[in-house]
C-alpha cells in the first residue's frame, strides 16, 4: 500500500479527538437507532425501500423523463445531464444571467462530488455553506469527515479557533454561543444571497417534487429567501410515486440520526412565491455522473438504493477508528468506497477498498439493502483483474492452489518455527516479520496436524456419515477443535469422515480479489466433499462454512462459470456450521447435554460470519447454557475482533485497536472463559490475551461442550 495512504491511517488512528468522538458516537448510535426503530418493522420498511429504489434504478431514464415533464408543468426548469462539468457551467451561467454575486447552500453531496463551490468561487462568486458542520469545514478549508456529521473530527476548541478567525474576535469554546454566532453570521448571508443551492433527499417523478430533509432549518431559508433556487439532484434520488417517500422518510431520520423525524421536511413542487411576491426562479439539475452506468451493471445496481443515511459508517468497526478523511473523497465509509469507484474512477478505490474488513455490520443496518461488503469484494476482483495481484499475493495463492505444496509447507513450518514457539504461541519473530506479532502472539503450527490425528481417532462404526471440513486453522493450528467436533458427532451416532483432498476454502483469495484462485479452491473442495455420501458437511469455522455454503456460488457467478453452480448448490445444501448442527441434534434428541451443572462464568464472542451471514448467534449460547455455563454478555459481543483473515496482516494498525476494544469488553465481564465458534477469531483473541497477560481462556464452543455430553442412545 502506498505510503501516503498508510500515513493518513496512522494520523487518523492516533488522532484522539477523532477516534474518541467517533467511538463514543458509534456506541451511542447503536442504542439510539434501536430506540428510534421501536414499534417499526425494519425489515418491512427496508424491503419497501429496496423495492421502490430498485424499481427506480431500473427505470432511471423513464423516471427522469416523467419527473422533467411534471416539474416543468409546475413551472420549474429541469436540466438533465450526465456530465458533471455541464452542471457547473449551467449554474455558472444561471448566476451570470441573474446577476448573482452571493450564493447560500444547504447540504448537497452531489455538489461536492463535482467541486461546484470551487468553480463558482473561481468565477468570483461568494459561496457560503449554511449547514453548521459544512460551514465549519468550509471555513477550516477541510473536507467533511462524515456524510451526516461533517465536522465530527473537530473539537469545540478547534471550532472556536476557526470562528474566531472568521469574525476577528477571540471566542470561547462554548457550544451554544458558537452555534448562536453561526446563526447571526449566516443570517446576514441568507438575507443577501441572490441564489440558493440545495440538494434533495428524494425526487418524485409522479409529482415533479423534491423532498429536502434537515434539522437546522437552513434548507427552508435557502429555498425561501434568495430569488433563484437551484436543486442539484443525483438521478438515484428519483422514485416513481409520491407515496414512495413514506418508507424513505421512515428510515432516513431513524438510521441517520436516530430521530423519528428530522425537524424539517420540505416538499417542493414548482416555484412558490418569493418574499417580495415574485415567483421563485426554480431550477432542478438532474445529474447522472455514471449513475446510469452503475444501474446497468448487475453487480452494482443495488448501490443506487442507498438513501445516504450513513448508517454503514456508524456501525463500521474500521470507520470509527479512521473517520472519513482517509477516504480522500466526498463519499466515505463502505458505500463511499463504492461510489468513489464509480463517480470518480475504479483506481481511486484501490487503497480505500482495502479498509473493509468484511464483517457485515453494515448489511444488517442498511435501509436500502445494499450488499456493501460483496460490492467491495467485486471492486477488489475488478482491480485485481485490471492490475494483477501483487507478487507476494501471486506467490501465496500459487501455493494455496497446490494443495500438496501448501500442506507440505505448513508441515515444514512446524519444524522451522521451533526456535520461536513456546506454549503453542509465537511471540516474537525476527526482522521484517516482527510486525506480525507486535500486538498479538501468533499460534504455533501444530506439530501433528488434524488430518494426521484424525487417522488415530477410533470411531464407533455407523451408517450415518458426516463429512468434516476442517479448514486450514483447525487442521494446522487448532487440531483439538477438530477432535472435539468428531467426539460430539460420534456421540450423536455419526461416523465422521475427513476427505483428504479438501483444501483451503478460498476465502483468503476471494477477500483479496483473486477470484480465479478462489474458484480453483471451490472446485477442488466440491469434488472432495461431494465424493462422500454424507448427511451433512460440517465445519467448525464460520468463514469456511460461509465459503462452502454461499461464496462458492457467488464466485462462480462473478466469473461467469455458471456450469459449476449446480454442484456448488448441491454442496451448499449439505453444509452446516458446528453449533447449528449440534443444537439441531440436541433438539432431535440425538445429543444429550449433562444438565444441572454449574460451570464457569463465560462470555461469548459472536464471529461476524456466524452471526451476520449464517444467523447462528442463538445456537452456541443455548448449547453452552444447557451444558451449565453461565453466559454473561459482553458489550458489543457481535463487533468484529479485527482479525479478518489477512486483514490483520495488511492493516495491523487498524486490526490492533479493534482487538484492544474487544479485549477490554471481554475482560469487563469478569468471565474466566471466552467462547467462540471461529478459529480465526480464536487466533486473534488468544494472541491478544497472551500479549495482554489476562488469565482468560479462549475456547471453541465444540471444545466446551464435547465433555458435557452424556453417552448417546446406541443406534
Amino acid at each position, binding site marked *: 500500500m502506498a505510503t501516503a495512504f498508510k500515513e493518513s491511517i496512522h494520523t487518523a488512528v492516533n488522532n484522539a479527538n477523532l477516534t474518541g*468522538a467517533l467511538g*463514543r*458516537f458509534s456506541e*451511542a448510535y447503536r442504542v439510539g437507532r434501536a430506540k428510534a426503530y421501536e414499534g417499526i418493522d425494519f425489515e418491512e420498511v427496508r424491503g419497501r425501500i429496496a423495492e421502490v429504489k430498485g424499481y427506480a434504478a431500473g427505470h432511471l431514464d423513464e423516471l427522469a423523463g416523467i419527473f422533467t415533464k411534471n416539474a416543468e408543468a*409546475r413551472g420549474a426548469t429541469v436540466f438533465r445531464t450526465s456530465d458533471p462539468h455541464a452542471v457547473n457551467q449551467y449554474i455558472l451561467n444561471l448566476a451570470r444571467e441573474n446577476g448573482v454575486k452571493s450564493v447560500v447552500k444547504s447540504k448537497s453531496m452531489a455538489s461536492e462530488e463535482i467541486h461546484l463551490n470551487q468553480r463558482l468561487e473561481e468565477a468570483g462568486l461568494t459561496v457560503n455553506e449554511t*449547514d*453548521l*458542520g459544512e460551514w*465549519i469545514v468550509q471555513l477550516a478549508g477541510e473536507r467533511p469527515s462524515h456524510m451526516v*456529521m461533517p*465536522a*465530527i473530527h*473537530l*473539537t*469545540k476548541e478547534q*471550532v472556536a479557533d476557526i470562528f474566531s478567525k472568521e469574525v476577528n474576535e477571540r471566542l470561547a469554546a462554548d*457550544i451554544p454561543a*458558537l*452555534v*448562536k454566532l*453561526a*446563526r447571526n453570521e*449566516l*443570517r446576514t448571508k441568507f*438575507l443577501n444571497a441572490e441564489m440558493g443551492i440545495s440538494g434533495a433527499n428524494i425526487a*418524485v417523478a409522479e*409529482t*415533479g*417534487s423534491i423532498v429536502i430533509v434537515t*434539522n*437546522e*432549518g*437552513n434548507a*427552508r*431559508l435557502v*429555498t*425561501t429567501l434568495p430569488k433563484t433556487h437551484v436543486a442539484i439532484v443525483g438521478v438515484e434520488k428519483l422514485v416513481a410515486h*409520491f*407515496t414512495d417517500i*413514506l418508507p424513505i*422518510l*421512515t428510515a432516513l431520520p431513524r438510521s441517520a440520526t436516530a*430521530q*423519528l*423525524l*428530522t*425537524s*424539517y*421536511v*420540505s*416538499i*417542493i*413542487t*414548482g416555484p*412558490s*412565491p*418569493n*418574499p*417580495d*411576491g415574485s415567483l421563485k426562479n426554480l431550477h432542478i439539475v438532474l445529474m447522472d455522473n455514471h449513475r446510469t452506468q452503475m444501474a446497468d451493471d448487475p453487480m452494482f445496481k443495488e448501490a443506487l438504493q442507498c438513501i445516504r443515511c450513513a448508517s454503514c459508517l456508524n456501525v463500521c468497526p474500521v470507520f470509527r477508528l479512521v473517520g472519513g478523511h482517509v477516504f480522500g473523497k466526498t463519499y466515505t465509509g463502505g458505500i463511499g468506497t463504492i461510489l468513489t469507484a464509480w463517480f470518480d474512477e475504479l483506481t481511486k478505490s484501490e487503497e480505500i477498498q482495502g479498509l473493509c474488513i468484511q464483517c457485515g455490520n453494515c448489511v444488517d443496518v442498511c435501509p436500502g439493502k445494499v450488499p456493501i461488503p460483496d460490492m467491495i469484494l467485486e471492486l477488489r476482483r475488478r482491480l485485481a483483474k485490471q492490475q494483477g495481484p501483487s507478487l507476494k499475493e501471486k506467490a501465496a495463492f500459487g501455493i494455496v492452489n497446490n494443495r500438496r505444496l501448501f500442506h507440505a509447507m505448513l508441515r515444514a513450518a512446524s519444524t522451522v518455527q521451533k526456535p520461536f514457539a513456546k506454549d503453542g504461541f509465537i511471540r516474537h519473530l525476527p526482522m521484517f516479520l516482527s510486525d506480525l506479532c507486535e500486538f498479538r502472539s501468533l499460534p504455533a503450527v501444530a506439530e501433528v496436524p488434524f488430518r494426521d490425528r484424525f487417522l488415530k481417532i477410533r470411531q464407533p462404526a455407523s451408517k450415518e456419515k458426516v463429512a468434516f471440513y476442517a479448514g486450514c486453522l483447525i487442521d494446522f493450528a487448532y487440531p483439538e477443535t477438530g477432535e472435539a467436533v468428531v467426539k460430539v458427532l460420534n456421540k450423536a451416532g455419526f461416523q465422521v469422515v475427513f476427505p483428504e483432498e479438501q483444501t483451503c476454502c478460498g476465502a483468503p483469495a476471494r477477500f483479496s480479489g483473486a477470484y480465479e484462485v478462489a474458484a480453483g479452491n471451490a472446485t477442488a473442495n466440491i469434488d472432495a466433499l461431494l465424493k462422500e455420501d454424507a448427511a451433512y458437511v460440517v465445519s467448525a469455522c464460520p468463514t469456511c462454512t460461509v465459503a462452502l455454503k454461499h461464496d462458492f456460488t457467488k464466485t462462480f457467478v462473478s466469473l461467469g462459470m455458471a456450469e459449476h453452480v449446480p454442484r456448488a448448490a448441491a454442496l451448499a445444501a449439505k453444509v452446516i456450521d458446528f453449533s447449528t448442527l449440534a443444537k439441531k441434534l440436541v433438539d432431535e434428541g440425538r445429543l444429550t447435554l449433562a444438565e444441572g451443572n454449574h460451570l464457569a462464568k463465560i462470555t461469548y464472542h459472536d464471529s461476524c460470519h456466524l452471526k451476520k451471514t449464517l444467523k447462528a448467534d442463538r445456537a452456541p449460547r443455548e448449547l453452552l447454557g444447557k451444558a451449565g455455563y453461565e453466559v454473561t454478555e459482553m458489550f458489543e459481543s457481535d463487533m468484529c475482533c479485527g482479525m479478518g483473515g489477512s486483514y490483520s496482516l495488511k492493516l495491523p494498525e487498524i486490526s490492533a485497536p479493534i482487538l484492544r476494544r474487544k479485549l477490554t469488553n471481554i475482560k469487563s465481564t469478569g468471565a474466566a472463559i471466552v467462547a467462540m465458534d471461529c478459529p480465526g477469531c480464536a487466533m486473534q483473541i488468544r494472541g491478544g490475551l497472551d500479549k495482554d497477560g489476562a488469565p482468560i481462556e479462549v475456547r471453541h464452543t465444540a471444545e466446551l461442550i464435547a465433555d458435557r455430553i452424556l453417552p448417546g442412545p446406541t443406534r
Partner: protein
Amino acid sequence: MPHLFDTFKTRAEAVSAEVHRFGLRGEALDFIVDLLRAEGVADARGSRAVWVPGSLLDGVDRCRLREQIPGLTFHVTQEAAEASKVGITQMEWAIANTGTLVTDAAPVERRLASALPVIHVAVLATDAIEPDMPAVLTRIHPDRSGYISMITGPSRTADIERVLTIGVHGPSRLVIVFIDELGRN
C-alpha cells in the same frame, strides 16, 4: 380524540416542543397575548412579532390586539419577520406518532414567520391530528400545495462535538397551541 393528542404531546415534547391545549379560542388568544407580553414583544427591531392571519383571528379585533401588543403586525414581510422575536402561524395538520406539524407553506408569509423569528407559535385545531404520515399525506398533496412544510420540534444541530443544541437557523422555541373549538379549516 384524547389518544391522538396524548401521543402527539409525548412525541413533540420529547423533541423539545412546548404543547398547550385549550377548549375555546378566547382562552388560546389570551395565552398567546400573555406569551407575547412575557417575551417582551415591543416595537423595536428584534422584539417585534408577526402573525399570519388564520381562522383563529376570524372576527377578532386585530386593531385592538395591536394596541395591546405594540410591535405586533399581521402584514408579514421578510423585513418584518426578520425584525421579529415571535412568529405566529396556523397549521393544517399534525402527525401524532412523530409529533409533527404539517402545513401548506406555499404562501411565503407562513415560511417567513415560522423560519426567521426565534420563537414560533403554531396554532391548530385539536382534531387536525392524524395518527401518522400516511394519513396526513392523504389530506395534503403536492398537486395542491407547492411547498409542504413538516415541522418537528425546534431547529437543532449536533454538529459540534455531537452536543445537541437547539436553535440554529430556525426557531429555538416551538410553542404549539391546540384549540378544540377551532375545528378543521
